[in-house]
């Protein structure tokens, strides 16, 4: 997978997180590569891409982080990962992906997005056939959010 695909997602994640977490300290961690199936941290919003390139982007975090992020975005402390909290994380994924895709379109890539879906649970795995995933951890005061991108050009 080409590294240039992930940069728009990292930039967009940085911008959107800064905005929705109200100017808190958001830092980008070190990029790493993972092949085969990817265990997720507990809450994962997934967006699919189809067109010139295909694949998926995963926004992955543990439950405490998801709840803390959703609480900030709602301006109130949410007690459980209920429908509102899930919709909030889904919308976060939506906003980050939309911003990243605008950049990728400007670079000349044409593709569509599937609406984000959210998964929660322990010991979940996402299996990507033959696609290695690039992961960039974003550190926020609410915890770590991993941007996990697996994209390939269509054969």
């Amino acid at each position, binding site marked *: 997978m080409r590294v240039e695909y992930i940069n728009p997602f990292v930039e967009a994640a940085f911008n*959107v997180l800064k*905005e*929705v977490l109200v100017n808190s300290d958001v830092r980008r961690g070190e990029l790493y590569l993972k092949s085969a199936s990817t265990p997720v941290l507990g809450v994962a919003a997934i967006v699919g891409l189809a067109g010139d390139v295909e694949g998926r982007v995963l926004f992955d975090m543990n439950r405490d982080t998801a709840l803390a992020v*959703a609480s900030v*975005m*709602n*301006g109130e402390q949410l007690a459980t990962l209920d*429908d*509102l909290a899930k*919709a*909030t994380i*889904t*919308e976060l994924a*939506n*906003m980050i992906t*939309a*911003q990243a*895709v*605008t950049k990728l*379109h400007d670079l000349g890539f044409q593709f569509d997005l599937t*609406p984000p879906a959210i998964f929660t649970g322990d010991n979940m795995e996402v299996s990507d056939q033959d696609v290695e995933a690039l992961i960039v951890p974003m550190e926020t005061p609410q915890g770590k959010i991993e941007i996990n991108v697996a994209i390939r050009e269509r054969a």
Partner: protein
Amino acid sequence: MKTKQDFPAINERKPDGFRPDGAAYRVLIVDDSVFVAKQLSQILTSEGYDVVATSGDGQAGLDAYKELYPNLDLVTMDITMPKMDGITALEKIIEFDKNARVIMISALGKQDLVKKALVMGARNYIVKPLDRKKVLERVAQVLLK
């Protein structure tokens, strides 16, 4: 000691959520995200608007519009929704009431769909993430026209 309340409120602005006759503007929110719907509702309610209904997809939004008509001043319309998308719902609402005031709520990167909506009769659009100032400005613009 003088407190703020001792001064006459000469600079107090009338909230935008009220019509010239003093009644609150009535708003229908159509959005499949409970988060976005709640955010919009909080922003609008805080300025005096009356959010009379919230629908989770385009079909429900269209049905709600017909039911509430003519006692409705504004619709906020999401674009990507299950069952019926916001562009189709907009089209059907305008078909039913050509004077309908609909504002599109869009994610970034949907310029083509937003343009299409504006050509079809949407009055304005707001790009997410939503912030209070942006939402209230666009809504007030549409209602004052």
